[in-house]
């Protein structure tokens, strides 16, 4: 028996590899291989044949087409990256606020929690698509549908803009708030998991800290900024990353990439677009991660 001659450490290592083996196989064959192939595709012209495909190398042509020739890709890419930057603070603020609210003790808390996590269950791209296309088919045009949707809100955001503007708050901030108000449903429905994560973090803050602060005469406001906020700050990074990843699934860029591949059958271009998207998002993640992790407070 070879096994007899192995040391305990070696046997444990083998056992560990045994446990991760399914994942390792999947990772090598269904993640790493496609990843490398995707790089190859992005530098080639891909022709699908009945029994497979052929590749012809064409340098950076695909990237050039994606950035300089394709009429939409640039716009869609910048738009959805900007939207991400725009949405992240709103979602973070809203979810932290809601988590703090739901962490307090009041009657009907469990019902409130159940309702607030409902969006986690119902966040469905399919339903959204059906709603939008349903409206478009109803009215015959995308623009009319959009107008109709705004009318249904039954609320004029300009009112808020004017009011806050008169109060002397900088205009960009007012616009941001107005945007947040008009899109409140989207923000609420995409912050379910974030609320869940923040809530779990809030519950892990030792209550003795609050007691001490209270005895020393701190107000609720002070104890939020001096205790709660630093204690949950590591989770802010987690939530930022989660929010960004979550927006991949049905972002316009993803749809554009999908259509380039399966509607116009231009697989090489699609791969190039996907890589540009990945690079843009990774840069964003690195920048945000760096900025936040400098300020994060680690308790342990």
């Amino acid at each position, binding site marked *: 028996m070879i096994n007899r001659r192995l040391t305990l450490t070696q046997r444990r290592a083998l*056992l560990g590899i045994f446990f991760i083996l399914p994942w390792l196989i999947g990772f090598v064959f269904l993640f790493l291989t496609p*990843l490398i192939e*995707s790089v190859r*595709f992005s530098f080639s012209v891909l022709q*699908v044949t009945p029994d497979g495909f052929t590749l012809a190398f064409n340098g950076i042509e695909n990237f050039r087409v994606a950035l300089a020739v394709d009429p939409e890709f640039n716009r869609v890419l910048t738009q959805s990256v900007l939207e991400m930057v725009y949405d992240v603070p709103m979602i973070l603020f809203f979810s932290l606020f809601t988590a703090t609210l739901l962490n307090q003790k009041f009657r009907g808390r469990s019902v409130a929690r159940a309702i607030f996590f409902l969006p986690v*269950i119902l966040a469905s791209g399919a339903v959204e698509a059906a709603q939008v296309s349903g409206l478009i088919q109803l009215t015959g045009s995308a623009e009319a549908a959009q107008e109709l949707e705004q009318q249904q809100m039954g609320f004029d955001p300009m009112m808020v803009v004017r009011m806050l503007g008169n109060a002397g708050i900088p205009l960009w901030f007012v616009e941001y708030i107005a945007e947040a108000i008009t899109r409140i449903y989207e923000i609420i429905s995409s912050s379910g998991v974030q609320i869940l994560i923040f809530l779990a973090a809030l519950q892990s803050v030792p209550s003795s800290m609050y007691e001490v602060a209270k005895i020393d005469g701190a107000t609720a406001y002070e104890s939020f900024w001096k205790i709660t906020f630093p204690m949950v700050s590591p989770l802010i990074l987690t939530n930022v990353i989660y929010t960004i990843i979550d927006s991949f699934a049905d972002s316009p860029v993803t749809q554009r990439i*999908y259509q380039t591949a399966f509607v116009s059958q231009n697989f090489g271009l699609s791969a190039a677009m*996907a890589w540009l998207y990945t690079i843009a998002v990774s840069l964003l993640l690195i920048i945000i991660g760096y900025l936040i992790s400098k300020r994060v407070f680690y308790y342990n």
Partner: protein
Amino acid sequence: MDAKLLKSEAIVYRYHRVKNKSMAWLWSFFRLVLIVGIGFIIIRPILERISVAFKSPEDIYNPTIYMVPIHFTLDNVKHAMEILNYWPLLRNTLLFVILTTLLATVSSALAGYGFARFKFPGSNLLFAFVVLTILVPASTLMVPMYLHFRSFDVLGLVTLFTGREGLNLINTYWPSLIMAALGVGLKSGLYIYIFRQFFRGLPKEIEEAALIDGAGGIRTFLTIMLPNSIPPIITVMLFAFVWQYNDTFYASLFMNNSELIANSIAALPANVNQKLPQLLGIVGTEARADPNHAAMIVDTGILMAIAPLIIMYLFVQRYFVESVERTGVVG
């Protein structure tokens, strides 16, 4: 003098008490308004759809109706069921989703345990790769995956035995099932992460005791670790179920023609416009149903698609919050 001081102190004390109490009352009132308001925003779409589902078409143009219809009917539900082909569709979807959920849970629990408790060469690097699988957008791997599953082959075995170019697995359940079983499916990286965090939080002593008593690694995992890890199992299963049920990306990539709720709902508006006139008995080439009526059927269809999730949620929502809290996602 003393008595006077005491009196004024008493007044100050009473003043503070009243102030504190009224502030507390104000805050809880404010909180109530906020919670009810946000809660209403969240459930309004569902309430509206329920109202629409039982509303008779006569009531569409009655402006006095808000939410509660005057003429109740089950016709909308019937039409939507017929157009969606509801029961077979639901059965297919549930079968597919439950299978992937189970496979994803098993594979990610194994991997999570492996990463949490064992040191082997490159274990840290491999775990960094797990995080990488979470971060890379699925659209990057889309084309190679599609081609890979279009002519699926394990190390050339299929070609060796049948001489053909591999199996075409597109439009079957296999691509998603294989990916789930190998822990690289929809958000599997996240599940592995959840399991790893949880297992790292469990005390090592139990395992050491089991090891000393002569249990092997696999037996320790099955009899000691798994029974103790109900919270992450529930969390992962819930998320896997819900996300797989709602997923449109892989559904349209691998199973564009399959009967799945995600696909059918996305195509529902077009189908309703096409089939509703026949169901209503309108004939002729120019036959079109009232668009508002069609919209009602679409809304009803959407409600019926999310109904299984809502019903499930009513039963499990308690565990949902609790188990996420105890999983140590936060860790």
